[in-house]
């Protein structure tokens, strides 16, 4: 099964500042913009890149969910592409 939509959401978290800001405030609302399975939604809510990888998402995109974690929000990684 294609991971396009969940991958797109993760890509947008890094590359689209407005999506990132919206997701920081309300991930549930942003997830309604994408065609996601219940498993994908659960993995996003859990914020665990390893769970996303198990669903077939590219490993580097999985890491982008960490941008929503308070511990990683200001990580230097987001200051470069």
């Amino acid at each position, binding site marked *: 099964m294609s991971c396009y939509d969940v991958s797109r959401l993760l890509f947008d978290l890094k*590359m689209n500042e407005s999506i990132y800001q919206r997701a920081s405030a309300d991930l549930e609302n942003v997830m309604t913009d994408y065609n996601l399975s219940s498993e994908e939604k659960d993995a996003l809510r859990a914020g665990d890149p390893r769970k996303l990888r198990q669903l077939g998402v*590219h490993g580097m995109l999985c890491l982008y969910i960490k941008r929503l974690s308070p511990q990683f929000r200001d*990580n230097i990684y987001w200051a470069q*592409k």
Partner: protein
Amino acid sequence: MPLVSALAASHAPNILLEPGREWEEFMDLHYSMAPKSSANRPTLEQQKKLRHDAEVAFSTLRADLELAKPDVLIVVANDQFVNFFWNNIPTFFVTLADRVRGQFTRHTFDYQNHKELGKSIVRAGMEKGIDFSYGEHIELQHTQTVPLYFLLPEQTLPILPIYVNTWVDPAPSPRRCYQVGELIRAVANSAPERVAILATGGLSHFPGSPRIGEIDESFDHELLEIMRNGRGRSLVDYSLQDLLNAGDSEFLNWMVVMGAVGETKAKYTAYMPDFVATGWGFVSWRLD
């Protein structure tokens, strides 16, 4: 003019991040994929030494590049979900922009893009059976900016970013990348400009994988020995899976330079595993 210089260098972000807090944050993020690896973190002193050793290697490459007096530097790198996504993944992409820009933490990059050379490569490819994708806008990312920070800090020499898909399955074969390099060399030989080429990436690393932190040093040393002996062509018989098993998928960028240098022996090689994720490699070929 003949191709005047060829270089290859790693583009790991931590090469340009500051030792200490920035390295720690970088490792925190990447090791969230495999927390076990956090036990192997380099000390601050090791981080500083690695940065110093990388600067020494880059200074050698920069001296060779300046000695060759190029008019343009082709930069062969992979996109990492900055310009391309699954709505369209080009196998090989040539940049036809007027200028190319990017940002890496505090560092800003802004280069003239040599689109005429780019068009020549695209046209030559179409005649020879290699149909490049191309476009008029890209954003530079660490796969280009990390080496460019050290090699072209004045940002006065035009560059030409060419992308290879090393990142998304299916990716091209080492043989096909070598053929692209041969084509680039042929175009450079008939171009009025003095053309230099740089491949970025690698060497062994497993980003975004549970294997993050593993480095296949033995495979990397094998590759470097092949380059020192001018036997890059022998690598066309490697399968993509051979490279993937060793965490060397970005060596596909280097395979383009293998095709461009042919049997020329590498004049300089340096290698340093960073104790974080990546075997940093640096190579220079003199083509005069």
